[in-house]
């Protein structure tokens, strides 16, 4: 049956079928869109940031099940974090929180990390006043 035999583990499947934070944020403070050339996945993350903290996050993803689940999980994890914390975010957190991804799909979690960082970078570009708080951004994004 469909529930017993699935390509991904139940957590991944649950995030794929019922993704959290799907959509766009009106008046987002930062938006990042990244793509994986080989696989054709495209991921977009929008952030609402207030007082150096991520208040809200949304994603849209063109990609496979694990790409959708990864963006769902990444936006879940990142909410409430400070920019500094968010800059240290690693794809491994997504993999762990999802209870693992097939080896060939790890790049989906990397894409989620990249989309998040692109969104933070966009935020800093649009909010130069925040640059002091997020000194590390350019280093990371370089």
């Amino acid at each position, binding site marked *: 049956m469909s529930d017993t035999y699935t390509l991904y583990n139940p957590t991944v499947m649950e995030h794929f079928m019922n993704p959290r934070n799907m959509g766009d944020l009106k008046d987002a403070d930062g938006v990042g869109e990244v793509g994986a*050339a080989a696989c*054709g*996945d495209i991921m977009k993350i929008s952030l609402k940031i207030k007082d150096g903290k991520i208040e809200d996050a949304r994603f849209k993803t063109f990609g496979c099940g694990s790409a959708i689940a990864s963006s769902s999980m990444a936006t879940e994890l990142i909410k409430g974090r400070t920019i500094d914390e968010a800059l240290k975010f690693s794809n491994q957190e997504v993999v762990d929180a999802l209870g693992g991804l097939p080896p060939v799909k790890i790049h989906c979690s990397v894409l989620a990390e990249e989309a998040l960082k692109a969104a933070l970078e966009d935020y800093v570009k649009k909010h130069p006043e925040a640059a002091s708080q997020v000194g590390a951004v350019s280093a990371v994004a370089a």
Partner: protein
Amino acid sequence: MRQVFLDHQSATPLLPAVFEAMRPYFTEAFGNPSSLHHHGLRVRDALKQARQQMAALIRADSEEEIFFTSDGTESANLAIKGVAYANERKGKHLVISATEHPSVMNSVEFLEKQGWTCTRVGVDSEGIIRLDELQAAITPQTVLVAIHHVNHDIGAIQPIREVGRICAEKAVPLYVDCEASAGWLPVDVKEFGAALVSFSPHRFYGPKGVGVLYRNKKARLVSIIHGGVQEGGRRAGTENVPAIVGGGVAAAVAVTELDSRAKHVAELQARLWEGLRSKIRFIKLNGPEPGPKRVPTNINISTEFIEGEGQLLMLDHQGFAVASGSSCVSKSLKISHVLGAIGLDHALAQGNIIMTLGKDNTVEDVDYTVETFARIVTKLRGMSPMWDEFERGVIDSVIAPTGRGKSFSQHAADVSGKPAH
């Protein structure tokens, strides 16, 4: 949950009659056909009957032209390498089409490493081989032409009689991979002018574990799996007797039911494509329209702005089994080379779904599929940044261009910093 199986290209359930025919060969008639005692001779007789049944399906003259292997892949390997090695002194050039199955493509690549050369003949946008290119590709060094009857991905039926005529003129043996057609379309080795033909009963309600290779006695062929002198010295190893017996029965049933099966799935195929096209915008059929140029089992579509694996997973969750040629579903992370060969846009290749019909599918299955699939497309487009960007005029549709925005490939290259393919 209601189950709709639309992946008959990858598997078919065993016919009950086939299972019953196989049953005694597991415990009762368990002998080895190489044995000289009655246990061996009994199963030897059974193999002979199965050979006759296989020969009848493809209208071969004699069961002595039928060799058993383990699957369609091994049959293709044997045809390609077995003919190449047998004719090494004559020449080391092969000709294949650009859309052959990986079992042919990769056998040829292996031979290329060993000093052979190969010309891959292109196909048109429907996936039909270019006969003029084929004609030009054959040289005096060519020892084999391999053109499949029907393509596994997009269902395109190749003009095999014309191919056969060209090969006969040039006196080069023709190998026709009939894995995607045997049991569904008439196959006639003589009409095809084929020196070799392969197929596998697991594609028409027979068991896994057996492949068939027909070889006209005039074609030279050496063995590629070495050992004992089973299969007239062409394939060593203990024969998989129950599967061979079952495969023979599946072939016999296919001979009698071929027309009715083909008619049934052709009706469903037309209804399925009509339903999808009318309910879903920005959807494209890959390969020829349903009709004389397309195998009646296959529908291969690309749905724009969404990716194939997601479609497949959501369909699976709803009880529908389908396949996809998207790069995300392949272990190699590459799109199907067939979609590449017909020049399909990369974005459309990513949104690929393959539905293959079988004798047990119904009109209700088809209507339910269209309805469910339309809902899934809406859901996935709602999650897709591409759909949003298309609606906002940032990127354009390939299927129905609006004249606004850049291409998906350009956009993907922009966001990833690298070209999309």
